[in-house]
């Protein structure tokens, strides 16, 4: 049997840290990167006698996420305790939601090669994050950092509707984009604020029964998720082809070796002993509250994309790319408005900016300059102050050390040469140095003009006004 006889079946459990100012059950800050255990208090350190108080913003953000993913919002919901021992879990239970999640039965629509596809969502629930264990080089042991303990999360659970690594990535990107748009999570994958548990199983095509699945936890880059899925699916197919059986287990993906490893021994099968948290009252949401949240829901990627096609006349491909990230979309709209040249802004985003992001493996949110600076760049080119080739250099500068493009060109002496006399001097000099090109041109080889302009640009380090150069060469050559 060949690989083509099997299909991959996947479901994703995505954890997104919510960008509330304070933690889910206490008023500690949620910011990333603080000194260990400085964002802690008796409550998130689980000191005896302390009690949780639910942060209402968390409910609001989760309901927003529910609406943005077409979920039904539960009027009655509750918090449950998931009991297990681990040093990063100070209460020895995580407050989560078991049988009554805030949101259920939603879907996210993705674009695939075969067209649009709905990935169904089982549920979205709220829970608290755990702390972190840091290896202590000095003692060889582990140290507990509880800064992250109690940071609010939503867990978004999909149905097993995903059929390929590509689909998984597209789904995850779409989800990320939605969460960014509704501003409930910053979705910074490197900081772990968006991470996914991936359930993978394979089955023979046409088989209605699901195969045994394995789970890979806490994946936090698109690239490794896709790689891990491909590897794991192939591993499962190989096992089955050899007549073996897939064990249901949790696996760890190792990015370096490109393999999955078994994480827990089976004897340790966890029984989380879920039960309703008696320290917290049940969550009751009124219709009024729910509809109020629905009203505040901002424009979602789909709507923006439509607008970009209709209002700005962007191509399908460009509109897709720009609307996929709220940050890019905002950058595009603001810079377009300020510069009055959406076409140019679009070009910058889809070509040079995207290229630099790709090269540096960065996310749009990491773009260091703002829409004002981008607009300024566009306007400087439009006014003829700089050429577009200088513009590209300015952009590189903006990525390195964002500041006013005008200051950049002044500092670097990049102002375009548009003085007729200066241009003429360059043209004369280049013509003197290249008699052969003059002859070629006169013999009908138009390419020679391009060569001469190129030489002149080189001579002026790209600062000469290309339009004027062209005109001047033509004039001199046809004299």
């Amino acid at each position: 049997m060949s690989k083509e006889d099997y299909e991959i079946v996947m479901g994703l459990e995505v954890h997104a840290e919510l960008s509330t100012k304070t933690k889910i059950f206490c008023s500690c800050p949620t910011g990333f990167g603080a000194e260990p255990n400085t964002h802690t208090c008796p409550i998130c350190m689980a000191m005896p006698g302390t009690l949780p108080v639910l942060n209402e913003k968390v409910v609001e953000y989760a309901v927003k996420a529910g609406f943005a993913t077409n979920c039904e919002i539960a009027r009655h919901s509750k918090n449950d305790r998931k009991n297990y021992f681990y040093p990063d879990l100070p209460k020895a239970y995580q407050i989560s939601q078991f049988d009554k999640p805030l949101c259920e039965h939603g879907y996210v629509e993705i674009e695939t090669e075969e067209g649009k596809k709905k990935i169904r969502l089982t549920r979205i629930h709220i829970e608290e994050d755990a702390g972190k264990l840091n290896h202590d080089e000095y003692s060889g042991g582990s140290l507990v950092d509880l800064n992250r303990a109690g940071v609010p999360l939503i867990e978004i659970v999909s149905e097993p509707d995903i059929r390929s690594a590509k689909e998984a990535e597209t789904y995850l990107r779409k989800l990320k984009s939605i969460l960014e748009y509704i501003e409930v999570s910053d979705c910074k994958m490197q900081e772990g604020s968006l991470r996914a548990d991936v359930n993978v199983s394979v089955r023979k095509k046409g088989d209605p029964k699901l195969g045994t699945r394995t789970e890979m936890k806490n994946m936090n880059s698109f690239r490794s998720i896709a790689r891990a899925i491909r590897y794991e699916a192939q591993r499962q197919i190989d096992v089955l082809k050899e007549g073996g059986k897939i064990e249901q287990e949790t696996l760890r993906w190792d990015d370096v070796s490109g393999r999955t490893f078994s994480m827990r021994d089976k004897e340790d099968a966890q029984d989380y002993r879920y039960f309703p948290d008696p320290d917290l009252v049940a969550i009751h949401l009124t219709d009024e509250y729910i509809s109020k949240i629905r009203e505040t829901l901002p424009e979602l990627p789909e709507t923006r994309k439509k607008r970009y096609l209709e209002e700005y006349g962007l191509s399908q491909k460009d509109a897709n790319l720009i609307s996929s990230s709220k940050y890019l979309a905002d950058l595009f709209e603001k810079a377009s408005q300020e510069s009055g040249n959406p076409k140019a802004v679009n070009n910058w985003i889809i070509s040079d900016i995207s290229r630099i992001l790709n090269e540096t493996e960065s996310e749009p949110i990491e773009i260091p300059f703002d829409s004002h600076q981008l607009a300024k760049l566009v306007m400087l080119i439009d006014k003829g102050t700089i050429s577009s080739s200088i513009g590209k250099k300015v952009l590189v500068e903006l990525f390195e050390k964002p500041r006013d493009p005008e200051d950049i060109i002044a500092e670097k002496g990049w102002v375009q040469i548009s003085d007729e006399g200066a241009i003429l001097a360059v043209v004369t000099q280049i013509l003197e140095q290249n008699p052969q090109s003059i002859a070629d041109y006169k013999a009908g080889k138009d390419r020679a003009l391009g060569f001469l302009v190129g030489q002149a640009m080189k001579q002026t380090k790209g600062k000469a006004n290309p339009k004027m150069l062209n005109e001047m060469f033509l004039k001199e050559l046809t004299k």
Partner: protein
Amino acid sequence: MEITELTVHELQEKLKKQEITITEIVGAYAKRIEEKEPEVQSFVTTLIEEAKKQAKEIEEKVKSGEITSDFAGIPIGIKDNLCTKGVRTTCSSRMLENFVAPYDATVVEKLNQENMIDLGKLNMDEFAMGGSTEYSYFKKTKNPWNLSKVPGGSSGGSAAAVAAGLVPWALGSDTGGSIRQPASFCGVVGLKPTYGLVSRYGLVAFASSLDQVGPITKDVRDSAMLLNLIAGHDEKDTTSAKREKIDYTKCLTQDIKGLKIGVPKEFFGEGINPEVKASLEKAIETYRLLGAEIREFSLDIANYSLAAYYIIACAEASSNLGRFDGIRYGYRTPEFSDLKELYKKSRSEGFGPEVKRRIMLGTYVLSSGYYDAYYKKAQQVRTLVMNEFNQGYNQFDVILTPTSPTVAFTIGSKSNNPLEMYLSDICTVSVNVAGLPAISIPCGVDKEGMPIGMQLIGNKFQEETILKAAYAYEQQVNFREQYKPQFKS
């Protein structure tokens, strides 16, 4: 009368009339503790020197008018499962032997606001699990009426200290009877408020859906006064109720004509000590004389309460006590080779037998495959218990029962028989299961001179009704003047 025999409202009167001073009060208690604590063993931690110092400071501030509270300088004892900033809170467990909380429980904060003086932290059954205070890691508290008897539990230190005059009043906590049963055994007044009336913030949790903090006092007026101080919504405890503030002393009048009292026959049947029964019957007669309408009725769900109670309480406890893992605070085993062993040994060595028993029970009833048969069913029983009490309150204002089927038992007689120990909670647990308020007041002594307690149960947030009923009886019978602890050995 000795200073240490006075109630708090009597102390307040004398302070007002300037017949005594705060330093005299604290001095008298310091002396009394020095004399009697070696016999009673009610404290885990005493704060005598701190208290004396505080007394002087507060006295100055009262003189200068800086402090005006009527409770300024009044001493109190605090059960050792209520967190006190800077003073260790042990829960009478090896696990927390050296634990010092960096915060005050909300109720403690409220007392501090009144400039009351903490005389110390009172002994209890480990993590409030038990009915005799024999399960304390540190010491066995003795019953001041007879030192060979238990004081009850789990707030045994609180009740014994109040009875012995080592503190004028105390705070206890009640999960299944832990205020009322020791109050009954020690001949004092114990009130368990409605679930949600008093904040649980800073009370080290045993069973979160059942725990309440409440007063243990010499008389009913003091009980109402201490309730005034500790009741009220707390933003830190979302299970605490938002209600209008009530002055619970206002309801204390002798007139209870027409008060409808229900007597559930299930509480007077099998297993009840005849002397306790006779004493209760006499109390019922007294109520009749005072003009109350008494009627017997059936509360048969009460038979299932005990089972439901132990399932729910142990389930919650198994989860609540998970945090004592030797990682961040509390006892850690000195030697371990890996994480699993660190957990195992720290918890095995840090917890006593009763706590372990309940953690295991609770873990079992929450386990997958058993959840429905135990925890879920217990929650269903809980709803039925509430419903049946509700029906009772359609007919009655107060439900009257014994607080415990027996008087205080001999130290060591039940500590090796957990089941028998659990049965001594039979009269009190349904009140916690239903979340109702109840008060235990002394209503007599048996032929050996051991106090007998009567429990008055009210409808939700009807503390005034039971306080009023208790006060009327107390005024009529005057137990405190008739009987005094003998410190028999």
